[in-house]
């Protein structure tokens, strides 16, 4: 064995470990959510109804679709269909951008109503509502950052695929990026009901 060696299983293993760390990163915010919900159940419910469920629903559909396209991209590269892989990757990146634009409009509307961390209008609405929106902005913000990172990653891998560095027998990079993208999706799958639906 030389110093430089190839170990796809090891690469996937490492990626899964990294995904654990991401789950725990978000879990801190979910713990805060759980404790705050127990403290202010009614105010959380009121605050939740202030959110626009249409924005959330559309974004859920967008992210789920993007997870499908990136999963298909992995299947495509396994079969050696480079062109299809590229199309699917860029659709995923496009959907990520749609998600972020949607998020931008949603947040602009809310900030326009004086709802943002540290605003005085928000403070007047009561402690529970303040906590809800603080957590909403921080969690969704951190998630949005992950969308940005994930989309960049997929874009880079798409370029590498076009250059022939990612191929049908060397595709662990695309696979790992897809895993990361599924994590972004997964976090949203928990985030969406907690903030928009169940209260």
């Amino acid at each position, binding site marked *: *064995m*030389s*110093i430089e*060696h190839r*170990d796809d*299983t*090891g*690469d996937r*293993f*490492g990626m899964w*470990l*990294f995904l*654990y*760390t*991401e789950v*725990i*990163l*978000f*879990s*801190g*915010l979910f*713990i*805060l959510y759980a*404790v*705050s919900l127990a*403290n*202010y159940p009614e105010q959380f419910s009121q605050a939740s109804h202030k959110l626009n469920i249409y924005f959330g629903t559309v974004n859920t559909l967008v992210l789920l679709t993007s997870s499908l396209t990136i999963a298909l991209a992995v299947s495509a590269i396994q079969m050696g269909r480079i062109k299809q892989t590229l199309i699917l990757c860029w659709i995923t990146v496009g959907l990520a951008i749609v998600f972020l634009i949607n998020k931008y409009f949603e947040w602009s509307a809310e900030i326009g109503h004086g709802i*943002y*961390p*540290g605003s005085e209008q928000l*403070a007047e609405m*009561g*402690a*529970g509502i*303040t*906590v809800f929106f*603080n*957590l909403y*902005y*921080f969690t969704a913000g*951190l998630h949005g950052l992950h969308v940005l990172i994930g989309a960049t990653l997929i874009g880079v891998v798409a370029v590498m695929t076009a250059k022939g560095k990612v191929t049908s027998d060397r595709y662990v990079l695309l696979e790992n990026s897809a895993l990361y993208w599924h994590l972004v999706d997964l976090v949203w799958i928990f985030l969406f009901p907690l903030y928009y639906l169940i209260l």
Partner: protein
Amino acid sequence: MNETTTYTGFWQESPRPGILGWLLTTDHKRIGIMYLGCIISMFIIGAVLGLALRLELIAPGPTIMGPQTYNATFTVHGIIMIFMFLIPSIPAAFGNLLLPLHIGARDVSFPKLNLLSWYCYMAGLVLVIFAMFGGGGVPDTGWTFYVPFSTQTTTNVNLAAFAAFMLGFSSILTGINFVTTVHRLRCEGMKWGRLPLFVWTLYATAWIQVLATPMIGITLVLVILERTFGAGLFDAARGGDPILFQHLFWIYSHPAVYIMILPGMGVVSEMIPTFARKPLFGYWAMALSSLAIAFAGSLVWAHHMYASGMSDLAVLVFSFLTFIVAIPSAIKVFNWISTLHKGSIELAPPMLFALAFIFNFAIGGLGGLALGAAASDIHLHDTTFVVGHFHYVMFGGGGFALFGAMHYWLPKFTGRMYNHKVAAIGWALLFVGFNITYMAMQAVGIMGMPRRYYDYLPEFHTLNLVATIGSWMLAAGLIVMFVNLWQGLRKGAPIGKNPWGGATLEWAIPSPPPLDNFGPEDPVVTKGPYEFKGVVADEY
């Protein structure tokens, strides 16, 4: 022996020449050496700050600094010693140097990621320097960044917190790398039951690094967001909860003390069999107790918060769980002592540090039980007893283990030996000075002296004076040790492959090791790590 005098191994073999050969290297040995250099530099800065703190406490009233300077000094001392010295010390420096050698691999699983983790460490280091000399003033929150003070003080807390975040990221990358390496790159014949104990402890540590560190990441990010937006998540007046910060903080920071001590235990478990010429007593008990410490240690965080406000039931549960951690820790201590029993003990310098580790760790561990029991903790909480206890386990344990590792393994990596007599003198100064300093600190804590004050009541004077004098002895010991190591490792007598007679894989290859570690043939392991039959120490 002529061969070893001219042979320079990985120090010369490099795909790139000069300084770039270091800054862009992916060789685990070079990265380990770079980590070690940074870590020792940070330790020296932290130690000077610690000496300044002790000097301030030599007499009641302000002596060399006022309250604000004192607060800033202990904060920076803590941040440097915890995040930049103890957490990366043995795992990042000696873990990188030795993990691949111990399991018969040519490098870690992700060599580039390994280099990236070093750059994350350097980024954290630069940020801490900015935090110290930047405009807002030196952070004064203590290394724990407790809210509400940390969200209100005008000092450079954002920079310091972000530095700790970057250092945490570096630690996570190292952890991911090590877990994957242990799973994937063990050489032929290196079964789990043949792993050296150092690898087992690194493995357990790496899991803590992976699973616990993100929690401090998100917590510190929240502190920064609080300071930037004034959101109030940890502010009781605005619906937040400061106690929640403490929970999130300790969910990482308690397991983090096991990141600091577990690899030290691994180092000691390597040295004791070698210098007792006996297989380690209870191999599997030692291996599994490392995992047990990592696991149980993740469930005890709230014992830092008995005085913060928790239900009696929670106090009881966390107190009970804390006592559970004592079991695997005690298994280790008893097994080391059983290994020594009827052994052919050689008191070489690394062995002295290993024995000092056991002594200091036993005292620190027993003090930990006094703090883990709720009744005595309420009395001891926030006294210098806590500080003394922490230094007993972290410095007397983790620090001494690092010094032991330096005496044990650095000759392997430089190919030269230091002076043993001077090393023993340095050790004696360190050991005696250490115990004087921190035993006095524990005693004055039991009398009721609170920690983190630059001033104290007259009745605490004698013991504080004793502790300060002890700290000078400690400093003298450090100087003797570092000078001796530096001179010996550069100009000392050349050594062969195996100066101590160790049976693990690194002793079968040249000193210093070549770039590809094992030469053209991959190693094949046929026996356990502590089977000394037929292993003979080289003369030097």
